[in-house]
């Protein structure tokens, strides 16, 4: 029963949504609209569930002093700091339990939550993403090596796109006569992105689309049950 109930729900709801796409008449429109609202409400609770899970997992690691527990502690302190500041004084124009915190806002220029968001979260977040540039540079040094036909092709393409996607590319071949404009590097880079890349992307998208249809049908028909948890 515990296992069959969600399977029956998944089947009924899945079939309803599919049918609603083909039957634009009552009551399918209303039903789909209600299901959409349910989905948004459940998604809201999923955020809460995620936060509970985050606290549970991290507190377990900190309590048992597992490896790198200090980072988890820093994460939890940051989490609660933002949460408490948000609850006490709100964020932007929303009010908190203790009002808008005018005195603190005057001292630091904005609400404590917004201050941390602006001067801690935003720079840290951008920094972590920017680190990718260092890995890409290091990977380019190691990966784009002339070995055989395929690797040569990859390297030539990469070089054209790298130059083409910089301001330097357009300056390099700017003086080419009109008859040879195709060989203008930014145009060549655009050609590579527009034709060979798009052709491959379309193939991937179509395959992925078919895969999604297949796995959705497996879930609706109850063949795929891994989302229920457990081994089967």
């Amino acid at each position, binding site marked *: 029963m515990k296992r069959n109930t969600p399977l029956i729900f998944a089947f009924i709801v899945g079939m309803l949504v599919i049918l609603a796409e083909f039957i634009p008449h009552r009551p399918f429109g209303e039903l789909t*609209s209600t299901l*959409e609202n349910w989905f*948004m409400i459940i998604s809201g609770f999923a955020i809460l569930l995620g936060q509970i899970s985050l606290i549970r997992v991290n507190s377990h690691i900190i309590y048992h002093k597992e490896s790198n527990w200090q980072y988890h502690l820093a994460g939890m302190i940051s989490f609660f700091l933002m949460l408490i500041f948000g609850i006490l004084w709100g964020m932007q124009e929303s009010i908190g339990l203790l009002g808008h915190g005018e005195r603190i806002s005057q001292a630091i220029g904005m609400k404590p939550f917004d201050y941390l968001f602006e001067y801690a979260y935003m720079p840290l977040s951008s920094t972590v993403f920017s680190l990718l540039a260092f890995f890409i540079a290091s990977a*380019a*040094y190691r990966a784009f090596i002339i070995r055989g036909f395929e690797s040569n092709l990859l390297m030539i393409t990469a070089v054209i796109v790298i130059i083409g996607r910089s301001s330097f590319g357009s300056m390099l071949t700017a003086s080419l006569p009109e008859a040879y404009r195709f060989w203008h590097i*930014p145009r060549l880079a655009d050609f590579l992105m527009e034709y060979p*890349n798009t052709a491959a992307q*379309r193939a991937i998208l179509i395959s992925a689309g078919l895969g999604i249809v297949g796995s959705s049908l497996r879930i609706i028909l109850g063949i795929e049950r891994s989302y229920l948890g457990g081994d089967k």
Partner: protein
Amino acid sequence: MKLSARTERQIIYTLLIIAVGLPLVFPIGWKTEVSGYTEMAYKLIEETPAGNVVLISFDYDPSTITELQPMAEALIEHAFKKNHRIVATALWPMGVQMAEKAFQEICAAYPNKVYGEDYVNLGYKVGGMVSIQAMGRNLKEVYPVDSKGTHYDELPILQNIKRLKDFAWIASLSSGVPGLKEWVMVAHDTYGIPVTGGCTAISAPGFFAYVNEQKQLTGILGGLKSASEYESLIDRKGTATSKMDAQSIAHLLILVFIAAGNLKVYLSRRRKRNA
């Protein structure tokens, strides 16, 4: 001289930080050529008549602010120049702050633009694609209040907006899922609304397939280069243009690294052959 992998990495990182840092401090001012994809997005906004209400969705967070925020600011400025009224939404929780920041930046140059009349920030809505589908049926049901808590009916900008179909165009600035792809699938494919947008350079190749004869996407801004192209089209001295110098130098340096890597492999192969 044989360098260890660690030393090589340290040299690469040091050179890269210098290559990126110097042009930021001493801008070069290189010009970028406008690509067809950027021009398509520009034309969509340029050719939309004044007074129309448009939607910009902020589907990113601070991690990709370097690439996407200049696009957001350029799109807002262009829409303001054309007297379009902007409704901002977010499918990512922190998109709300990103929208707020972009409006603050642009409104400093457009003090006559009034919140609630010329632009509004509706805030974040959970649910991704399902939220967009729900907006397609009834926007007020999804957003009964804006991000400041003002009721839908009290916002003059939304007086004639009932559903997605009432927007002249939709732009999504997206750094993942949910984002631009979901807007294409619902807003364009289901409701036929012109959709454009921007994404990080790394995810741009995945979106080019949607710029097709059916105009699933009306142009796309991919990464900092497109942002700087857009800035040049609307004659804006934004951050993308200055950051583009740094990116161009970094690209050149990566080419030098590729050449150095190949030279290293060639020399090592020759050494092995001779041994």
